[in-house]
């Protein structure tokens, strides 16, 4: 009997030891706890992202059902009959939000500072991937002349700069409105320069001030006024310029946009002269300036 009691006591201690050993083995180390948590996070994220992926594909495919009556498979939406074409400003809708010109600060107005400001701007960085430019030339200031239109594009100066791709070719040209008074700039336009465009090999502006001075001398027998500098300018052009039935459309001197400016030089006789993109020298009365709204 004592033997059986002892045996049972030994068995109980053995069970306790085994139990203890088992429990020791099942205790997780801190590393195992962290690993479990990470695995749980990963599993949940995978489930959620997978659901998102599936629902995105399903939504994208929602109008792509094939075969059958074409009209029956076209889901309604913008561009449907009796459905507003957009989300604002139409009957029963709230007004569209006002246009945000996207002004950004331009505190320093040297070409180098402006280049840096442009390179940091949202629009410049937003378009970079699409148009693959990697660097800028030196920006050029184009002054607005006869600027009393009430339209920001015409009434402010502009900074215009060509941009280069990784091969060193010009691939585009940016135009920014420059509000000098308020030290700010806003995107105006971006033109794509293609490889076959002669301007792909040139930095803007495409005619130098030295060439403009030389043309003044040759065509008008005039030097520029000492201590004066040539300026790039543009002006609000007479809208008849775009009417092919109007003689105004024959104007070839340019100056109608900041990307197509003309040079303004003060002659030694004190008069202003304009050297056009057609390499001809004009006076102010030659320019087809808009009299009313351009």
């Amino acid at each position, binding site marked *: 009997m004592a033997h059986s009691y002892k045996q049972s006591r030994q068995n109980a201690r053995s069970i306790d030891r085994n139990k203890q050993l088992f429990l020791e083995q099942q205790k997780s180390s801190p590393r195992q706890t962290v690993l479990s948590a990470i695995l749980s996070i990963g599993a949940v994220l995978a489930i959620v992202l997978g659901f998102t992926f599936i629902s995105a594909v399903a939504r994208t495919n929602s109008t*792509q059902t094939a075969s059958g009556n074409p009209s029956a498979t076209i889901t309604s939406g913008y561009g449907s009959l009796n459905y507003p074409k957009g989300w604002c400003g139409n009957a029963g809708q709230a007004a569209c939000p006002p246009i945000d010109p996207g002004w950004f600060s331009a505190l320093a107005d040297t070409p180098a500072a402006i280049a840096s400001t442009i390179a940091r701007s949202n629009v410049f960085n937003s378009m970079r991937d699409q148009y693959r430019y990697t660097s800028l030339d030196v920006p050029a200031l184009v002054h607005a002349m006869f600027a009393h239109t009430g339209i920001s594009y015409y009434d402010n100066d502009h900074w215009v700069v060509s941009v280069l791709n990784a091969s060193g070719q010009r691939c585009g040209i940016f135009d920014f409105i420059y509000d000098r008074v308020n030290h700010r700039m806003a995107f105006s336009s971006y033109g*794509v320069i293609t490889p076959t465009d002669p301007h792909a090999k040139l930095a803007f502006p495409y005619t130098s001030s030295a060439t403009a001075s030389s043309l003044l001398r040759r065509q008008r027998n005039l030097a520029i006024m000492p201590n004066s500098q040539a300026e790039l300018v543009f002006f609000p052009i007479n809208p008849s310029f775009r009417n092919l039935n109007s003689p105004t459309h024959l104007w070839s001197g340019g100056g109608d946009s900041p990307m197509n400016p003309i040079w303004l030089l003060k002659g030694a006789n004190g008069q202003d002269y304009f050297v056009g993109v057609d390499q001809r020298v004009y006076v102010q009365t030659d320019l087809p300036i808009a009299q009313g709204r351009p």
Partner: protein
Amino acid sequence: MLFLRSRAMATILGIVLALAIVQFWSYDNLPVVQAASNTHQQTQIPNCYPCYSFYGSYTPWMNTATSDWFEQQSNWCGVANIRAIQRYDWIYWGNNGGNSTTPGWDNSQSAIFNRLSTSGQSPWGRGSGGANLVSNISGDFGTDPHSIAYGAWYETPVSTGSQPYYFHNWIYKTSALTATEDISTDFGANTVSHNDPISATIDGGFHSFIISGFYASSDPSQGGAALNSIVTWDPWLNSSNQARDGHYYYNTTQEEVWSISNWTTLTKFWGQGYNTNNGSDPEPNTPNHYYVPPFPNYPHHWDTYFVTIEQDRIPNNTYSYDYAIDENGHLAPHN
């Protein structure tokens, strides 16, 4: 039990943390998932804030579509636009189950013009005066919006359930800004047109552009996007940016991106609506007066409004290209 409890605590903690992370996840940061038949909306994550992504036509195909530009006659901007839309749509079709990337007929600008000259008459007659095209409903000096809508429909692939090619003249009687917001919905993931380009009449009707997309804060086809700029293609210029007559009346480059501010304020674009008093772009004058103004509450058909030709969700067997649609998706007022 201790085993289960220790594992369970870590697991529960992980799940809670994961759900918390998901709440802050912005789906806008994910690349857009594109079905095989809805391609070439390009999105990226640029280094900027706020950022504007491009939503629109695939540029390499646009380059092919405009490769025969500039317009071969001075009043063929509509013809050149039809050809660009045609080329682009056929390339799309051929890359998405179709058996060809080009139409099986002469699709030169002159061939297109000839078809517009001799076919496409509206059920209410043809216009008189101007270019005297059979497909015009007015005395336009070139192609009027009805003619362009007909040409776009005729020249593009036959519609199927999965790839409809329905075109209409859209007439926006609201404002330049609202009309611009409205046309922006043609670009993005949720369009029936797969980001195909559209034609927009500008400068009061003197000229028309191809619009191939927008830079926006989010997908315009979903509504609510903040638009930054509009991508335009000028048929007056060729792919070397040479002007047809050496003069740059509109764009300086064939493809030019304009700020929305400039697009809606400069009279050479949508700073003015259609101008039927400019001597070149009159109102319709068909003999059966279908679209000949005046109409109750709306004195004009095109005059002062913003006019486009767009691909849309209105089947040809419901209302054909003969019918103009307004900004509310309603038939344009008519007699």
